[in-house]
């Protein structure tokens, strides 16, 4: 099991250069059965990350480009009347895949957004009175472009909560970027990526994450962090219990990636910014500077 994980990470690092932390977080997110939101400008490797993940883990990949005129049926699928069989036949939409890249999710109308988000939460789709389960594992990587904010429908806070983690890729370090420029063809590199795992193995890894021990002392720490968000004057609201659960699950996945049998406070700290940053709603900035996730980590003592 350990070997499988480290091989996966090694393979991914060949394609995604200079981003070991983000890569591991994305993997942890997948293993924790959560969904990932990436907020970044185009061209920093969001699609590559999604493609590489799907390829290495041996999962089926679909990409949906969200636009203003995208309809829910375009995502979920539609029943079409076939004259040959004289019956309606369901054409599954792109959502029926194991890894989905929902590009620029904030460009679509709220109706379409919520169709995707509901599918993410329920892991099934109800169309025309029939409930169709989505494949397992099911992992959505959504991206938001923070730069062009014209004509977009920002995800409401309640929807943001559905994503386990929110990452920002950022520019690669100079050395990695140099290596990137030196490479000949990235498409072939992706195609040559070895398939390390398959869907069944991914599911067993996900089961392994749930087995990672979280002792009472650690739960106390998570609780203290959650409480701190609720008591901080710079935040409008504290985070929800769902956020606490998400933090625990993400920390378990991180500990699993690190090959540890139990979750350490270090693991919680490693995933905390990715899990919390998009859930912290600043209060009136004029009165109190809203804290970043790192400020909270520095302020809350480990019990």
């Amino acid at each position, binding site marked *: 099991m350990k070997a499988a994980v480290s091989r996966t990470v090694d393979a991914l690092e060949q394609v995604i250069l200079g981003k070991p932390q983000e890569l591991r977080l994305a993997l942890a997110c997948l293993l924790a059965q959560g969904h990932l939101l990436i907020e970044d400008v185009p061209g920093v490797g969001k699609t590559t990350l999604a493609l590489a993940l799907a390829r290495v883990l041996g999962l089926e990949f679909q990409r949906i480009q969200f636009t203003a005129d995208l309809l829910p049926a375009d995502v979920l699928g539609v029943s079409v009347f076939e004259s040959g069989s004289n019956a309606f036949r369901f054409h599954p939409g792109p959502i029926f895949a194991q890894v989905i890249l929902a590009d620029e999710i904030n460009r679509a109308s709220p109706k379409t957004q919520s169709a995707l988000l509901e599918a993410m939460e329920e892991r099934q789709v109800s169309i025309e009175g029939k409930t169709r389960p989505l494949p397992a594992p099911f992992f959505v990587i959504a991206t938001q472009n923070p730069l062009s904010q014209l004509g977009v429908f920002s995800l409401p806070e309640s929807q943001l909560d559905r994503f386990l983690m929110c990452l920002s890729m950022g520019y690669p370090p100079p050395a990695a970027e140099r290596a990137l420029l030196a490479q000949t063809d990235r498409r072939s590199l992706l195609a040559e990526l070895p398939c390390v795992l398959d869907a069944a193995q991914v599911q067993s890894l996900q089961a392994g994450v749930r087995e990672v*021990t979280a*002792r009472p*002392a*650690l739960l106390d720490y998570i609780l203290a962090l959650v409480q701190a968000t609720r008591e901080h*004057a710079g935040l*409008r*609201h504290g985070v929800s219990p769902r956020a606490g659960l998400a933090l625990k699950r993400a920390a378990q996945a991180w500990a699993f990636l690190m090959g*540890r*049998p*139990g*979750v*350490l*406070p*270090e693991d919680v*700290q490693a995933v905390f910014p990715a899990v919390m940053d998009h859930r912290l709603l600043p*209060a*009136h900035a004029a*009165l*109190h500077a809203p804290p970043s996730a790192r400020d*909270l*980590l*520095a*302020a*809350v*003592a*480990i019990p």
Partner: protein
Amino acid sequence: MTVTTADVLPRALLLRLIGLLVLVLAPHALRVPVWESALVAVAIGWRLAHLQRGVPLPGRVIKTLLTIAAFAGVYVTYGRVNGQHPGTALLVLMAALKLLEMRSQRDVRVMVALLYFLVFTHFLFSQEIWTVAWLLVTVVGVTGLLVEVNTRAATGDAAGRAWRQHWRLGGVIVAQALPLMVVLFLLFPRIPGPLWGLPADAGSSRSGVPDSMSPGDIAELILNEAIAFRVRFEGEPPGQRQLYWRGPVFERYDGRRWDAYPQNGPARAPSLQTLGEPVALEMMLESTRGFSLFGLEMSDPAALPAGSRLDENGQLLALRRITERRLLRQQAWPRYRLDARALPRWHRQRTLQLPVNSAPRTRALVQQWRAETPDDAALIQRALAHFRQHPFRYTLRPPRLGPQPVDEFLFTTQAGFCEHYASSFVVMMRAAGLPARVVIGYQGGARSPVGDDWVIRQSDAHAWAEVWLAGEGWRRVDPTAAVSPDRIEQGLRGAFDTARGELPAFLRRDGSTLWAMSRARWDFLNAQWNRWFLAYGPELQQAFLSRLGVRGWTQMLLWLTGLITALLLLVAAWLLWRGRPAPPADAASRSWRRLQRAAARQVDARPGEAPTAWCQRLADRQPHLRAQLDAARTAYQALRYGPESAQTEAQQQQLDRAVRGLIKALRRRRPPPAG
């Protein structure tokens, strides 16, 4: 501009603010003119109508007009806009008008500050127990409101905490300030004289016996039940007949009005000879805004109370105007001789002077007596007998007297009270060629049924006569006693044996009723309050503190700052102690804590720092300990966060061993040589 939630005033907050304003202003309603109370009520009503019915608030023009009206009203009522009364009146009005233009949280803060100030203004008028109790309640309320405003601002209105919690916090804050209050009360230097030189109008409400005496002056006082002073005798009190509390001595007479000659030349000491045993007493004098201290006759010139002098007529005077309650210790000699040796010529002339055309019938009568009785003492007796033998009666409602008051009183109306008797008696004596004068002050007093205080009220005001006899000096003669001995024996109540309905209501009540008892208890409580708190002025403070070894202003201020610093340090220490980390429950954490404490000099433990990061920092400074640190850390992490296993004991031992080794290594000053 967008309106944020912080700008909108919540209804409940406003209602509470208005309630508090009413609470704070209520006692002032008894003091300010009626039109002002009405204007305040209009402002409050308007704001309430706006709140409940949406009635629009006044526009700029109306607000300006209201403000001008308030100023004008105050100016017309008091003749100016500054000073204690007009200033307070203006403040009350402005606070009420502020209600009409409150829009934002900032306005609420202004109101809170105003409310604190309004609370304070009450002390300019009253320092009774009820005032202090009332104001304590309102201060808790105002502080609660302040807490609420700030909580709302900090949490953006989201934390809908109940107002009770805010009030509780306000109460806690006020309670926490109490020790500070005690220290400031005891040690803050008392300023002699009224607070911050209260403006001149503070003296406008003079009370007590007047500076001059014309018919009717004392009758007004007799209807006043206010307490003039309280007395506690050390030892056995003298008899009621001896209780003459000496005030001003009047020697000048214009046929109707008695007053004192203005003093010219340096003050002279009285020529006084004391006899018998002295009486020591403690006196709690209410503020009279005058100088007279009303000492029991006759004050001992050798043991004068602090800040007082005895003038040549034996009147005990304060050196400065009495503007606050004063506690003083007096020594008095019930038997004494004043001016026994001789009366100077000028003084003799003064005390024989009579207006030329005054009281012809009286003069004729007295001159006839004089011819029959050459002995001075016998003449006095004859005059007193005159009062006894004729149908004189003691009444608070004497008939009006015309241009010759003494003649009319003696021969026609024959009804009056102490000042009529004293005045006519002195005129008779002067007509007979005996130097005589009028003394006013208080007579008697009532022993409180609770405690052993004596209470002397304004209604005990009295006037009596003094006649100078060769070899004996000034002899006190009380003609009222001749007519109504009960007035002197039993106090004022005794003078009215028949219920004629002229006795003031408060004297008519039966002393045994529950009401009288509770009133006595309340008086007693007030007396204790005055004695222990209000009388604590400059003199008492000096006396009290010098008994504790604190002398002088410098030391007082040093102690004040020292004690306050100590108090604050104590609070800080308590907070630190309360906030200290609880000792960890499990063995692994205890070992780890030991290690962290031992390494505290190398690296401090940051609150949110995980063991890995901490070990990293420590190992960077002490590279030779890295392996041991890793061992300790792994064992600690496995024990604390790893899955529970059977090897717990072994791991704990491993941790303890590693920690012991590390602590030993850390205690060594220098790292061991490499290799």
